[in-house]
């Protein structure tokens, strides 16, 4: 019975998407989306519980045994990432009601929620599937719907941002397709576990190495790993607030999951260390952390500042992944989960400001912190989490990343992580300074606090930031098991 959970998790939003599209404009589409995402959160929670307590879930579509049929294979990693995606969606949708009514044209609202559910389906599908071509299809479902969603932003730059993302995203997906084709040509299979059993004999082949490189570059584009991150700042800045929250917290994380899965489960142990991939991940991680943080400092738009900071945070995950050690991958998975919480909360709070004053440029938000204390509080706490102050989730992930770097005796990386945190103090400080310490530009303007429906989901994520900063059993414990489930060998 448990195995059906994994299928329902993808099928429910997939069926709901066209239903939502034909509903009349109003609040019904939102209500259906709310029901669907809550149901998925419940299912994802049950799935994680079942995987942790009862073991792996294998689901064979139509009873066709893999490698012929498509199979879902859920272990601790998928279950954790799926729970994260479903959890973020379930808090984003309540937040969406008012924000979407403000930012999206009324007749487009059903289509908006329909595209949102499709994007959700795609992301869940990527995490659930055990078939590498099925993964490509889900990748394109989520990508195509996210291009459409980004283009719905209220400024015209949203269109060019969506177009740029479409071009780069499609290049990335096609690179992935080339890689899959090359590996298929040598192994004759698309099932991940089947690939894992056939690849060890032929790791010396050039075709396999080429295919591996294509897959990694393709997903590095999707992950927005420095220097392939050019689409990200504009896409996050100009997308509707809700979509920025959702994509920032889930899309890049799912791409990271795929990279982990392919690096450690599909390819045999030791394959990566014989390629320059790890050095490249480490290098682009370090440069990404530094350049992303420095560029964030110079932004005048808060959303763009946070988007550049996302590039830096992805750099931390790449650094953890590049160690190929249990400790490093665990740190990456912890940061994947925690970063979703902090960026989700930050973008939600910024979205609440946009909801009230229609913009989030530094000069327009001056002094607003005193008029919107709850929104300001959310930004402050999740900003501290982004910096990595003890007692917040951000501290836990940085701590484990530093431990992983120390284990490798890589002092440069330790220095980069600490320096990156210092830079984060500067850019978070800039937002706080503008919101609270600068005099208001327009003293006559009184801005009301954001509505409760926007604040409640924001504060749920803020509390999650504090909770997972104090109680590390769930994140660290599950992340450790997840890293083992991936097949990272303890050295």
């Amino acid at each position: 019975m448990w195995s059906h959970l994994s299928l329902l998790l993808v099928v429910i939003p997939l069926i709901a998407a066209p239903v939502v599209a034909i509903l009349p404009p109003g609040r019904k589409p939102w209500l259906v989306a709310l029901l669907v995402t809550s149901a998925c959160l419940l299912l994802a929670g049950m799935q994680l519980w079942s995987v942790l307590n009862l073991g792996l879930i294998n689901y064979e579509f139509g009873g066709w045994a893999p490698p012929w049929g498509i199979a879902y294979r859920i272990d601790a990693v998928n279950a954790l990432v799926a729970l994260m995606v479903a959890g973020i969606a379930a808090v984003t949708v309540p937040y969406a009601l008012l924000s979407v009514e403000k930012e999206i044209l009324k007749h487009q609202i059903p289509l908006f929620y329909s595209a949102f559910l499709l994007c959700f389906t795609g992301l869940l599908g990527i995490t659930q599937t055990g078939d590498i071509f099925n993964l490509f299809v889900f990748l394109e479902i989520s990508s195509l719907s996210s291009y459409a969603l980004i283009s719905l932003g209220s400024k015209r730059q949203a269109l060019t941002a969506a177009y740029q993302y479409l071009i780069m995203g499609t290049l990335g997906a096609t690179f992935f397709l080339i890689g899959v084709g090359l590996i298929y040509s040598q192994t004759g299979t698309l099932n991940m576990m089947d690939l894992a059993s056939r690849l060890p004999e032929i790791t010396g082949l050039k075709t396999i190495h080429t295919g591996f490189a294509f897959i990694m570059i393709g997903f590095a584009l999707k992950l927005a790993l420095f220097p392939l991150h050019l689409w990200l700042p504009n896409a996050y800045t100009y997308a509707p607030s809700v979509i920025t929250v959702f994509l920032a917290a889930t899309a890049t994380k799912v791409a990271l999951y795929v990279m982990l899965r392919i690096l450690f489960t599909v390819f045999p142990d030791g394959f990566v260390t014989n390629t320059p991939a790890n050095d490249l991940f480490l290098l682009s991680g370090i440069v990404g952390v530094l350049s992303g943080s420095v560029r964030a400092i110079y932004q005048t738009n808060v959303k763009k500042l946070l988007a550049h900071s996302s590039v830096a945070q992805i750099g931390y995950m790449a650094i953890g992944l590049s160690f190929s050690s249990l400790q490093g991958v665990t740190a990456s998975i912890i940061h994947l989960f925690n970063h979703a919480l902090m960026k989700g909360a930050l973008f939600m709070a910024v979205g609440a400001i946009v909801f009230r004053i229609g913009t989030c440029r530094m000069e327009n938000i001056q002094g607003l912190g005193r008029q919107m204390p709850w929104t300001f509080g959310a930004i402050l706490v999740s900003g501290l989490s982004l910096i990595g102050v003890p007692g917040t989730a951000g501290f836990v992930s940085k701590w484990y990343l530093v431990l992983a770097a120390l284990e490798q005796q890589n002092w440069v990386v330790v220095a980069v992580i600490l320096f990156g945190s210092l830079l984060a103090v500067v850019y978070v400080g800039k937002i706080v300074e503008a919101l609270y310490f600068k005099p208001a530009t327009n003293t006559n303007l009184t801005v009301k606090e954001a509505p409760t429906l926007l604040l409640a989901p924001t504060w749920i994520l803020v509390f999650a930031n504090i909770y997972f900063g104090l109680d590390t059993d769930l994140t660290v414990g599950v992340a450790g098991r997840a890293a083992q489930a991936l097949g990272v060998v303890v050295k």
Partner: protein
Amino acid sequence: MDFVVSHYNYLIAIFLMMIGFYTVISRGNLIKKIVGLNIFQVSVFLIYISLSTVKGGAAPIITEGVKIYSNPLPHVLILTAIVVGVATTALGLALVVRIKEAYGTIEEDEIHKQDNSL
């Protein structure tokens, strides 16, 4: 020379791939970029299709007296990928129409100029 003849399918695909990729990178016209993207994708489809050929194999339809069939799986995969490609092109072109309405141009440098002058 033998290498060229025996690998001509790959060489054609790589040639097309580079044309498409170069067009995407170098052209400033948004429609031409999408054309380039299409050529790039089609070259990948060709790689898959040529992979599926089995020497002396018949079309993969069960017939009496035929022992060797070509591999039908890549065809099916590419059918899916073609659909994805069509959807991407449609969405890309729709975005270009909206960009033309919003900016009055589809040249990348002019769009940048308009955004920066704000």
